[in-house]
C-alpha cells in the first residue's frame, strides 16, 4: 500500500500566543515573500501593454494614424477595436463600456488602441506617437449639467413615504439648500494589473488583481468569443481593492487576453499609477439638493432629496451606487414623510465605479449635514438632534419600508456619548473657543447604519469547496478574494471552528474560477457573510458523512460522535483528527464537498420602491474632535473615539483593523483628498504628488476603537456582522466636527456651508461665511 502522509507539525507562525489568528499572510507581507501579480516570474517572450488615450472628453474620431507606433523599436503588436475577435463591450452589468473605443470617445483617457511591446517602457513611449484627429462635441462635465440637460445613463428612481408635500407645507421650519460632494480616488497601493497566458486549447489563463474573478472570466471569454469554460482566472491576493477592482479590473484581463491569444505568448498589462488615476473609475461625485421640514425641537417632519450621481460616461455599476446613496439618505434617522429621488447623471468623464460604501457615504453625509443645520436652526447640540431623530421604537420604518427591528443604534450612541465624555468635552470646547482668538475646536458624534446585502438580489450567493486530505490537513477554496481585509483568515477560522479542529490544519489558497464557479464579487462587505456560510455548509456536509461513517463503523449513536478541540469523540473513545480521517479514507468516505449559501429574507420591489433590500444593518458611531487655525483653515484631528457593531466578532483584531482603516479612508475622502478636473474634462489630480491620501501624521494619537458587544439578531455566520464598508462613513464625524468648528465662529447661530472635502481652503471659506453671517446680524 502507498504510504499516507504523516501528521504535520503545527509550529508555523500563524497565531500570536493564545490569541486570535493574525492575517494569514502577515509574515509573508513583512518579509516581502507575498507574491503579487507583478512579482511573478516573467517569461522571456512576455509582452507588456500600454494604451493610447483619448485627449478629448467628447469627440468623433476623424482619423487614426498608428504607423509610427507600429514602427517603434520593441513594439510587437498594435490593436484597435476591430481587432477584437469577440464582443467589444466589457460592461459588468449593462452595456457601453468598450474595451477599445471605435470612432467615438466620451472621456479623456479612454483607450483607443493598445500596444504590446517587449517592455512597458517601449510600449509607453510608442503610444505617444499616435496621430489622432478628433471632431470635438460639447461635453457635459458636472452632474448639475446632466440634470439640467436630462442626460442620464439610466432611469431615475424615487422612494417615497408618507405625505411629504403636506408635511413640508405644515412644518414650522424648513431649510432648503444643496451640497456638492466630491468623489475619491481608490489609491490601492498595487495598481491595476493582469497577466494572461494562452493555453494549448486556444483558451487562456488570466492572473488578475480583481475583486471579481468570475466576471473577468466571463468578459475575457466574451471578448475572445470563447466559452466561459475555456478561461481560467486566478487571484491570490490584491494589494488593495476598495471597490476599485470590482468592475475595473476586467479591462486589464481582457486586453491582456486578446493580445496573448493573438500573439501566442504571455502578456502583462500593468497600469502605471498615472494611467490608473486617469483611466479607471472613482467614487462618484454627488450633487444633493435638499429640503427638510422640522419642528422647534429639531424633529424632522419631512424630507425631499434630489441626489444626482456623477456616473461618468457609462452605467458601469452606477445603478446600484445611486440606489445605495438613496437607501442611506436617512442614515440613522427616521423620516416620516420623504421623497428621495436618485438621478444617474451622465458626464463625459471616466465612468465612476464602486468604492467602499458604494454610494452610501453620499447619502449619510447628506443626512448628517441636515442634522448639523437643524441643530443650529433650533439652537441645540447636534447630538441631541441626532438622538431625537434616531430610529427607535415607534420610529422604526425606513422610507423604503424596511423595519429596524432592534435598538442597537440608540444604545450604541448613548454608550459612546458616555465613554467619550462627550458632554464634558463639549463644555470645555465652548470655553476654549470663547477664549481663543485664532484657534477654534469642533466636536461631532455621528452614527452610521449600513444595510448589508447586495441590492442586486442575485449576487447574494456564495460558494465554497472544502477538501480534507489524509493527513488531516484541510484546504478551503471559496469565491471570495483577499484584498487585505483578512477574508481568507476569517473563512479558515470558520472552517476550523465548524470542524472542531485546530486552525493550523486549515490551508487557504488563491481564488480560482475552476474551483468555485460563478462567484459574486467580493464587495458589499459581504465577503465573510456569503463565503463563510458556504464554507460552513461544505464542512457540515463532510462532517455528516464522517458521522455516518462513525455510526456504521463503531456502532455508536450519531449523538456520540463529535469533533472538538482537534479530537474526534467516538462515544467513550477519542482519536486524533488525522487518524480518524485516515480511517475514513481507507473506508472510502468522500472527503471533499462544495458548499453553497444564499441570503434569505431579502427582496426589494423596485416598482413600488418598497421592500427589504437588506438582511440586517451594521451600525457604529464615532466622536471626532478637531482644532482649526482660523487664519489659514488648517486643522488637526485631535481625538477619535469609535464604538462599532460587528455582532459576535469572528476575529476582533481583523475587525478593528477594518474599522480603523475604513475610518481613516473616510476621513481622507472628506479632508485632504480632493479630485480636480479642468474645464476640458481632464483630471488634474493624476498622481500622488497632487492627490493626497492621509499619512500617519494625520491620524490622532488619541484614537480608540471598541466593539459593541451584541450578537447579530439575524442568522449570519456565527452571528457576526459585515465590517468592510460601514466604518468608512464614521469619517463623516471629522467633517461634521470641522463644520461645528466653523459654526462656532458665529456662536452656532448658523451652520455655514462646508465643501466636501473640507480642505484647509474649504474650512477657511466656511469660517468666512460664518463670520459674514455674524457681521450681517450685528
Amino acid at each position: 500500500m502507498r504510504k499516507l502522509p504523516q501528521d504535520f507539525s503545527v509550529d508555523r507562525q500563524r497565531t500570536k500566543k493564545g490569541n486570535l489568528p493574525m492575517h494569514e499572510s502577515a509574515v509573508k507581507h513583512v518579509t516581502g515573500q507575498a507574491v503579487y501579480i507583478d512579482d511573478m516570474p516573467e517569461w522571456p517572450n512576455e509582452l507588456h501593454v500600454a494604451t493610447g488615450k483619448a485627449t478629448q472628453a467628447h469627440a468623433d474620431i476623424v482619423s487614426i494614424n498608428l504607423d509610427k507606433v507600429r514602427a517603434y523599436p520593441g513594439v510587437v503588436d498594435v490593436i484597435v477595436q476591430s481587432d477584437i475577435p469577440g464582443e467589444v463591450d466589457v460592461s459588468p452589468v449593462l452595456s457601453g463600456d468598450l474595451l477599445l473605443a471605435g470612432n467615438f470617445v466620451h472621456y479623456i483617457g479612454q483607450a483607443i488602441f493598445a500596444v504590446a511591446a517587449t517592455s512597458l517602457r517601449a510600449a509607453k513611449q510608442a503610444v505617444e506617437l499616435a496621430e489622432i484627429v478628433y471632431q470635438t462635441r460639447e461635453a457635459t462635465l458636472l452632474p448639475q449639467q446632466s440634470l439640467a440637460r436630462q442626460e442620464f445613463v439610466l432611469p431615475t428612481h424615487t422612494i417615497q413615504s408618507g405625505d411629504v408635500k403636506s408635511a413640508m407645507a405644515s412644518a414650522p421650519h424648513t431649510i432648503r439648500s444643496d451640497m456638492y460632494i466630491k468623489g475619491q480616488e481608490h489609491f490601492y497601493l498595487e495598481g491595476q494589473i493582469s497577466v494572461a497566458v494562452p493555453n494549448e486549447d486556444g483558451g487562456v489563463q488570466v492572473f488578475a488583481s480583481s475583486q471579481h474573478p468570475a466576471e473577468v472570466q466571463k468578459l475575457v471569454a466574451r471578448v475572445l468569443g470563447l466559452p466561459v469554460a475555456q478561461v481560467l482566472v486566478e487571484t491570490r491576493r490584491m494589494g488593495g481593492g476598495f471597490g476599485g477592482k470590482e468592475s475595473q479590473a476586467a479591462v486589464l484581463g481582457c486586453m491582456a487576453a486578446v493580445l496573448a491569444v493573438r500573439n501566442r505568448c504571455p502578456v502583462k498589462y500593468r497600469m502605471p499609477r498615472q494611467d490608473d488615476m486617469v483611466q479607471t473609475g472613482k467614487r462618484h461625485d454627488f450633487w444633493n439638493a435638499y429640503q427638510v421640514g422640522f419642528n422647534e425641537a429639531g424633529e424632522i417632519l419631512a424630507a425631499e432629496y434630489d441626489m444626482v450621481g456623477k456616473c461618468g460616461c457609462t452605467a458601469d455599476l452606477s445603478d446600484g451606487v445611486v440606489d445605495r446613496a438613496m437607501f442611506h439618505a436617512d442614515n440613522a434617522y427616521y423620516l416620516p414623510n420623504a421623497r428621495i429621488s436618485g438621478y444617474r447623471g451622465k458626464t463625459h468623464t471616466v465612468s465612476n465605479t464602486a468604492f467602499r460604501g458604494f454610494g452610501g457615504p453620499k447619502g449619510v453625509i447628506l443626512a448628517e449635514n441636515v442634522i448639523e443645520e437643524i441643530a443650529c436652526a433650533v439652537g441645540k447640540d447636534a447630538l441631541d438632534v441626532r438622538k431625537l431623530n434616531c430610529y427607535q421604537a415607534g420610529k422604526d420604518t425606513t422610507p423604503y419600508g424596511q423595519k429596524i427591528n432592534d435598538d442597537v443604534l440608540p444604545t450604541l450612541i448613548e454608550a459612546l456619548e458616555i465613554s467619550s465624555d462627550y458632554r464634558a468635552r463639549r463644555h470645555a470646547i465652548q470655553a476654549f473657543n470663547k477664549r481663543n482668538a485664532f484657534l477654534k475646536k469642533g466636536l461631532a458624534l455621528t452614527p452610521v447604519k449600513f444595510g448589508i446585502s447586495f441590492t442586486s438580489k442575485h449576487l447574494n450567493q456564495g460558494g465554497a469547496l472544502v477538501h480534507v486530505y489524509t493527513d488531516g490537513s484541510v484546504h478551503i477554496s471559496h469565491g471570495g478574494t483577499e484584498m487585505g481585509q483578512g477574508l481568507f483568515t476569517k473563512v479558515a477560522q470558520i472552517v476550523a471552528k465548524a470542524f472542531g479542529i485546530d486552525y493550523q490544519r486549515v490551508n487557504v489558497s488563491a481564488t480560482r474560477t475552476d474551483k468555485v464557479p460563478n462567484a459574486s464579487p467580493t464587495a458589499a462587505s459581504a465577503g465573510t457573510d456569503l463565503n463563510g456560510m458556504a464554507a460552513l455548509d461544505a464542512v457540515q456536509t463532510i462532517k455528516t458523512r464522517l458521522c455516518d461513517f462513525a455510526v456504521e463503523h463503531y456502532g455508536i449513536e450519531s449523538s456520540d460522535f463529535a469533533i472538538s478541540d482537534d479530537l474526534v469523540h467516538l462515544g467513550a473513545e477519542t482519536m486524533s483528527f488525522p487518524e480518524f480521517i485516515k480511517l475514513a479514507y481507507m473506508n472510502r468516505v468522500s472527503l471533499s464537498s462544495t458548499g453553497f449559501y444564499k441570503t434569505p429574507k431579502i427582496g426589494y420591489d423596485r416598482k413600488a420602491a418598497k421592500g427589504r433590500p437588506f438582511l440586517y444593518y451594521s451600525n457604529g458611531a464615532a466622536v471626532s474632535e478637531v482644532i482649526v487655525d482660523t487664519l489659514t483653515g488648517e486643522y488637526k484631528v485631535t481625538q477619535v473615539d469609535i464604538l462599532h457593531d460587528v455582532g459576535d466578532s469572528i476575529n476582533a483584531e481583523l475587525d478593528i483593523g477594518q474599522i480603523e482603516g475604513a475610518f481613516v479612508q473616510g476621513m481622507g475622502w472628506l479632508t485632504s483628498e480632493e479630485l480636480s478636473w479642468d474645464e476640458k474634462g481632464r483630471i488634474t489630480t493624476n498622481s500622488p504628488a497632487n492627490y493626497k491620501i492621509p499619512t500617519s501624521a494625520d491620524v490622532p494619537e488619541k484614537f480608540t476603537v471598541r466593539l459593541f458587544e451584541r450578537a447579530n439578531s439575524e442568522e449570519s455566520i456565527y452571528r457576526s456582522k459585515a465590517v468592510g464598508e460601514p466604518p468608512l462613513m464614521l469619517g463623516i464625524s471629522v467633517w461634521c466636527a470641522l463644520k461645528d468648528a466653523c459654526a462656532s465662529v458665529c456662536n452656532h447661530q448658523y451652520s455655514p456651508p462646508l465643501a466636501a472635502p473640507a480642505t484647509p481652503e474649504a474650512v477657511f471659506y466656511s469660517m468666512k461665511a460664518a463670520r459674514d453671517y455674524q457681521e450681517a446680524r450685528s
Partner: protein
Amino acid sequence: MKFLLNDQCIEDNSLPSDFTALRYLREKRGLMGTKEGCASGDCGACTLLVGELNEGELRYSTFNSCITPVQSLAGKHVVSVEYLSQAEKLHPAQQALVEHHGSQCGFCTPGFVLSLASLYEEKQTCQQPIDRASVCDAISGNLCRCTGYRPIIDAGLSMTEIETGYVERLSKNDKVKQTLDELQCSASVDDYLSKPKNYLLPQDLDQLIAVKNIYPDGILIAGGTDLMLENTQRYHDFDTLIDLSQVSEMQGIREDGARLIIGASTTYSELEAYSASRYPHIYHLLGRIASCQIRNRGTIGGNVANASPIADLPPLLLAFDADIQLADSHGTLRNISIHDFYQGYKQTQLKQDEWIVSFTLSLDKLAHCHRFYKVSKRMEDDISSVMLAVRFATEDHQITDVRIAFGGMAATPIRALQAEARLCSAEVDDERALLEAIECLKKELTPLSDMRASASYRLDMACNLLRKGWLAVNQTDVVSFSGHGVSESILTSGMEGEAHA
C-alpha cells in the same frame, strides 16, 4: 559600477545611466519584495536602505528606489527587505508589524519595514527611545491605504521591546564595513576618466570640471528627486548623467566668519539635522518639506536650481538675502544674489554649463526674527499652496529691515517689495502699517488657481501669513500645525488675543 546589495558584492557595467535601483532589484536580481506603487517617490512602497561609511561609522538611511539611479549607489550598501530576516528570524521591525497587525493588503509593508528598520538602527545607535513623533517622521513617506496607520505606529513604538533572537544590528556589521572600505579604495584607484561611462560621480570640483568638459551634454543630477520623474513619469531616456552629490566642495554646512556656507549638495536631512539645535524655525520648515525618504536624497542646490515656483527653500533664501556661488566648466567662479537668480517660470541666471556650488547666508540676518509658514492640503509630503518666509530686523521697537518672500504666488519665488517698503521703518506693533502692507500684497501679487488652491485662497493666505509673521515679531506666535500632534501647551497661544483678531 560596484556596490554591496544585501550580502552580495555586485559589479555591473552594462546599465543605462537612468536605470533605477527599483528596476535593478526587480528586473536584474529577482528581488521582488520591493514594490512599485507610484514610481514618483510619493508612496514609499519602494523604500530601501542605503548604508555608507562616515568616518568609520556605518550609517543607514532610507530612500525611494523608484527614482534613484542605481549607479548613484556605487560603493554603498543597499539593503532590501529580503536581507532583514535571515535564518527565519524576523527583524524587530518585522516582528512588531506582525504582532500589531500592521499589514492588511501587504503591498506597502516592505517599505514600512525598511523605514522602521532605519529608525530602529538610528535610535539604537544613539541610544535614544523611540517616540511617536520619530515614528511618524520615519514613515512620513510611506503611504498605507488599508490600516489607518495606528497599528504601524504602535509597531514602531514597540520595536525595542521585541525579542526575536535577531542578533546583529546592521551598523555593527564589520564585514559590511570592510567591504565598503574595499569598494572605496578600489574606486579611488580606478581612474574613472579612462573608460567611457554614462554615470559619473566626480569627487571634487576639478574632477567635475574635467567630466563636464568630456561630456558637455551630460545632465547634472544631485538627489534626482525631481529630475528622475522625467524618466519614470514621462518616459524620457537620459544619456549621460553627472552626479554632483559627492563633489567635496559642494558638501556640508559650515560657519566661516560672519557667514554660514551651505554646500549645494547638502541634503534636506543634513540641513534639518544642522538646524535642529540652532535654527528651530528652519528645522520646523524642513519637517514640512517632502518626506523622510526624499529629504535624505534631495539637495538644497537642486531645490533652488530647479526653479520651481512652489519650491520651499527659495523663499527662505530670499528672506536671508543669500548669495549663490556658481562655477562653470571652464573653472570660472562667480557670485550672484538670490534676488537676481530667478528670471521667469523655470528660468534662472544659470548658464548652460554652469552649476551652483554653495549658498552663503549672513549670520547676523539669521539672528533676526524669522518665520516660515507653509500651507498645503496635507501636513506631510505635500507641495505648498502658499509658502511665506519672513524676516524682521528690529531696533528700538522699530522695524529696520524686512523681507517678505513667497512661494506659490507667481511664476517664480517672489518678494513682496511694496509690502516690505510699507513695513520698513514702521513701529513693530503698528497694526495700521500691517494692514497697509496687506493691501500692498493684494496689489502686487497675482497668483494662479490650480488643483492645489484657488487664486483667492492663495492671496488670502499671503495676507494672513504675513499677519502671522507680524504677530510673531510682536511676541504672539500663533500656533502653526505640523505633522506632529497638537500639545495642549502650544494651544495657549492666541488666548485672549482678541485685539489682533
